[in-house]
């Protein structure tokens, strides 16, 4: 008998696909049936003796959890493309396979990144506020003017699937030039969007719009700091939809409040949620969203199904649709 623990709420069809497969596997599954994250103590209790674990990005899967689970655990499936919440070294050591959800969320994330970029550059949040609170007079020539994509240079920090998808969507806005930086050039991806490889310094200097799309690693932790912001144009817009830890938030606050950069849009912060008294909330030119980049009905459905299928394949000892190479 295999026991599977699932944390967090899943779509109905995921249950159905799990159940129909479980019938043949004689699997028991246990669900933390809530919209809210499972408390740490509960997680440590419930993973005991599990063969499989399906989690989301709010669970830190480290040595403590893996030890609590014990030697049966052979597959971990996360409903996310990011894996900075997983201790990869510990997982590899124990021979545990890992599934994740790249690609199915690329469209939704790229779309939300552009939504955030435009909301920031065209001052949508300031504008809706003025409309609601009486600041809206009659049409005026320079009121609430923003910065246009037409004729601009867009810089991408970390050129992966999502970075390419963002550039593809920005092209018809008449962007003049795409540039990117990364640990090394990515010629195939760059060719798809005709992007030029530059240093991080050049990316800062040339970009009118800078979008951060890299994974969070020890190398990228806090890499968007005063060193980067001080080199950027004072008319530039900074967008981060990757992971909060990539940005030094104190340095960002400085850059925004002193006019070093024109505006910033964040879908990810440290911590999440960001406390409501955080200084970034006092800035008109900072737009903060609650990590909703992949939040479309179809995408969350697809992520959920993929996470379930990764889990089932892992339990059966078969190839996963999307396995993370450890």
């Amino acid at each position: 008998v295999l026991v599977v623990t699932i944390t967090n709420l899943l779509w109905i069809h995921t249950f159905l696909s799990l159940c129909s497969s479980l019938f043949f596997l004689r699997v028991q599954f246990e669900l933390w049936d809530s919209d809210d994250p499972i408390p740490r103590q509960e997680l440590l209790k419930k993973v005991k003796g599990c063969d499989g674990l399906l989690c989301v990005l709010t669970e830190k899967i480290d040595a403590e959890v893996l030890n609590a689970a014990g030697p049966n655990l052979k597959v971990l499936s996360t409903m996310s493309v990011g894996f900075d919440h997983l201790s990869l070294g510990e997982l590899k050591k124990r021979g545990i396979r890992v599934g994740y959800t790249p690609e199915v969320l690329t469209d939704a994330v790229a779309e939300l990144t552009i939504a955030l970029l435009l909301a920031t550059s065209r001052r949508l949040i300031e504008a809706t506020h003025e409309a609601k609170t009486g600041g809206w007079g009659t049409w005026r020539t320079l009121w609430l003017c923003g910065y246009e994509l037409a004729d601009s240079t867009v810089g991408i920090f970390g050129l992966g699937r999502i970075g390419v998808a963002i550039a593809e969507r920005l092209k018809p806005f008449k962007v003049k030039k795409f540039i990117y930086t990364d640990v090394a050039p990515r010629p195939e991806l760059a060719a798809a969007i005709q992007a030029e490889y530059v240093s991080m310094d050049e990316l800062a200097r040339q970009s009118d719009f800078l979008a951060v799309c890299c994974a969070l690693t020890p190398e990228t932790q806090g890499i968007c700091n005063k060193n980067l912001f001080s080199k950027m144009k004072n008319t530039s817009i900074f967008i981060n939809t990757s992971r909060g830890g990539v940005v030094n938030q104190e340095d960002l606050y400085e850059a925004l409040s002193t006019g070093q950069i024109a505006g910033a849009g964040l879908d990810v912060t440290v911590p999440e949620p960001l406390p409501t008294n955080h200084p970034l909330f006092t800035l008109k030119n900072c737009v903060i969203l609650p990590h909703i980049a992949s939040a479309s009905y179809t995408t969350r459905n697809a992520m959920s199904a993929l996470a379930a299928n990764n889990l089932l394949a892992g339990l059966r000892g078969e190839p996963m649709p999307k396995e993370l190479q450890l």
Partner: protein
Amino acid sequence: MHFAQPVLRVFVTRRIPQEGLELLQRAAVCTVSLWDSDEPVPRAELLKGVEGAHGLLCLLSDRIDAEVLDAAGPNLKVISTMSVGFDHLAIDEIKKRSIRVGYTPDVLTDATAELTVALLLATARRLPEGIQEVKSGGWSSWKPLWLCGYGLSGSTVGVIGLGRIGLAVARRLKPFGVKRLLYSGRQPKPQAQEVDGEYVPLDSLLCESDFVVVSCALSPETQGLCDKAFFTKMKTTAVFINTSRGAVVNQEDLYEALTAGQIAAAGLDVTTPEPLPTDHPLLALKNCVVLPHIGSATYSTRGIMAKLTANNLLAGLTGEAMPSELKL
């Protein structure tokens, strides 16, 4: 002997961006009387200011009707508006008096199409709601179904009025994975081919679209087009976007449609009136995003519009070809 040129007089109804004012002043073709304010010229001041003017430079907030034209008198030969819309101009009265009209198409197409897409995305992906939750403490942790919205990927988009702006919007939406691009209007447009646009009757567009974008001019035919019958035909999961003119939409019917769940959400950059009173019911709805008519509001575009408006005016004063003349 030195013959003095007749002094051409021009009235400018607002403090327009410097680029435009400087062009007028440097041309040394006319004396400029300027309502030097960011706020609209009051009606009485407008009627006084236009007296004897040869040229009038105005904005869309100035209603130029028979009363204004009569107050101006027979000198008036050119009206130049800093807008692409001209529903604020009494065209018949202007034509009758053989006054030429300049306007600003094309130069604002990119900024307006960009803002239309911005509004569509903000509405479909629930950005203002998300920001509200963040500020009010409603954000607790990542949740699989919280604040989910409607994505463009695999969707059908319907554009009502595939003119310059409608086409520019369609071009920008395409790479988001839009599966079908429908459009309606008085006749099919050859340029629709570029975006694989399908010309369909309005009813079909409404029934089949996940996103309905209104991008037509305001005319007697389009006045109140978006009414109860219109919204009833739309999908309950559809998003409605209007960045054309407020009067194309029946706002009471829109409010009904939004609260009854007949459509999922709406985004408006234009309303009736403008500004919309702060106690208007639409402003209280979570699924309605209202922007204060900022379609063309970028620094570069407003500067270019100002220059074009000034150049149209100067050409009209000196009897030359205008860069952008409105065919009356």
